[in-house]
């Protein structure tokens, strides 16, 4: 007996990525650097979020050529982004045999009401969330992994911290409520009841929850891990910095040793220039990617 792409197998891959760092790459050369630096997976992109932000315009799924080039160059799992609600981009990624699809607010949304029904795909999905309502709605749609949205391409960790703290506080509210309060909590958070019941049963989120959006330094990665994230996505932070290979390695070591300030200090030494950050206050509401998603 053999059944492919079951819910358990999809969530299982996310379990295997735990405690690891997933890095954005735009070509085979960067993918190899990421793999050699200890990444547990790479995100194949045409442009990293900082450049998407700078370039403006409509950001779409990366070209199939770039994605395949990355898939052919490394032995670790390869992820790629589809636009929110763009189920055809997801179908194309699925047909390429991609290992994980990120239905991502970093790209320009294709549907202003609906997300992709993720149950019907062979590849597992990861989705961004700013609170427990968003996280549980994505899980109800079939996401096998959640990440904070943060504010991608800014090198500023403040939004990722806000989202993680919000999710943790709301999760604690669900975990400590009595069964009679569950429907009302579902209404308050905009959270599907069946996922809240799963949370109660398992005494935790039913999927892995990574940090993403603005992580630029080893200390940022360790901060998100100490706040309870299961692992870290680093987008622009690595290949927009002075010495990508060294910074990538330092972030990997920091993520494993997130509770050890001495090691964090050691790996943070002589790292060269981090990416230039952006203050969230200077962004207009339209420029905030975390607002995308419903």
């Amino acid at each position: 007996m053999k059944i492919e792409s079951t819910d358990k197998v999809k969530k299982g891959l996310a379990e295997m990525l735990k405690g690891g760092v997933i890095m954005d790459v735009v070509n085979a050369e960067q993918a190899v650097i990421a793999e050699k630096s200890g990444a547990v997976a790479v995100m194949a992109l045409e442009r990293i979020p900082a450049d998407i932000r700078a370039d403006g315009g409509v950001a779409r799924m990366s070209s199939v050529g770039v994605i395949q080039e990355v898939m052919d160059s490394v032995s670790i799992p390869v992820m790629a982004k589809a636009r929110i609600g763009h189920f055809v981009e997801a179908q194309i990624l699925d047909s390429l045999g991609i290992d994980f699809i990120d239905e991502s607010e970093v790209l320009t949304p294709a549907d202003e009401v609906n997300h992709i029904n993720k149950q019907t795909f062979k590849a597992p999905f990861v989705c961004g969330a700013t609170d427990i309502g968003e996280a549980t709605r994505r899980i109800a749609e079939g996401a096998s992994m959640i990440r904070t949205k943060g504010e991608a391409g800014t090198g500023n960790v403040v939004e990722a911290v806000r989202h993680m703290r919000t999710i943790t506080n709301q999760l604690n509210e669900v975990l400590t409520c009595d069964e009679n309060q569950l429907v009302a909590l579902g209404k308050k958070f905009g959270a599907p009841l069946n996922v809240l019941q799963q949370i109660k049963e398992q005494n935790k989120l039913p999927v892995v929850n990574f940090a993403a959006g603005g992580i630029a330094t080893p200390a940022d990665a360790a901060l998100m891990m100490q706040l309870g994230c299961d692992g870290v996505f680093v987008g622009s932070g690595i290949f927009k910095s002075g010495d990508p290979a060294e910074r990538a390695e330092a972030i990997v070591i920091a993520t494993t040793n997130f509770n050890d300030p001495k090691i964090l200090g050691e790996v943070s030494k002589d790292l060269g220039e981090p990416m230039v950050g952006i203050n969230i206050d200077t962004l207009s509401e339209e420029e905030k990617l975390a607002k995308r998603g419903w």
Partner: protein
Amino acid sequence: MKVGILSFQGSFFDHSKSIETIGYSPVFIKHDTNIQDLDALILPGGESTAMNKINNYQNIFNDLDILIKSGIPTLSTCAGTILLANQVVGGNITIPNIDIQITRNAYGRQTESFEGSVSFFDNEDIYCFIRAPKITQLLSDDVKVIAKHDSDIVGVQQKNIVALTFHPELNNDRYYLDWLHNFIKEGKNVRTF
């Protein structure tokens, strides 16, 4: 009983749940400071390339090698089994302790990951194979086959080491937990057959 679980990254938390369920104490291993007085060892699934890289910094694989060779019950799953294999196709030899050749990502990418029936010792159940490696050759008579999926060898035992390519820690079924309990309890006397 203290059971060390290699915790650089991967499914170490799931293994710790199994260990707690059978009444033993999990110890998350990242440094050489917490590998003293262990009664058993688990090398979990994850990405073997990442674990290798992280060890360049943590530098504990030599100590784990000594621990394994001392004869304590050792269980590996998926990437953990790649770490222990004497021959690796598509990857590095890391802590060679089992006479097998293993091939990384042998079933294909994630879209080929599956749940499949496995005969594990004298039980049959359904387990997850996630971007799993394949045991493609047995390199000595000391290696006994203890688990099969169809004709594929998915689990072997050599002395104190049981090495699997699937993920029993994602099931935590009664048979697996009872087996794990006894395997660890037997300690250094763990039977080869």
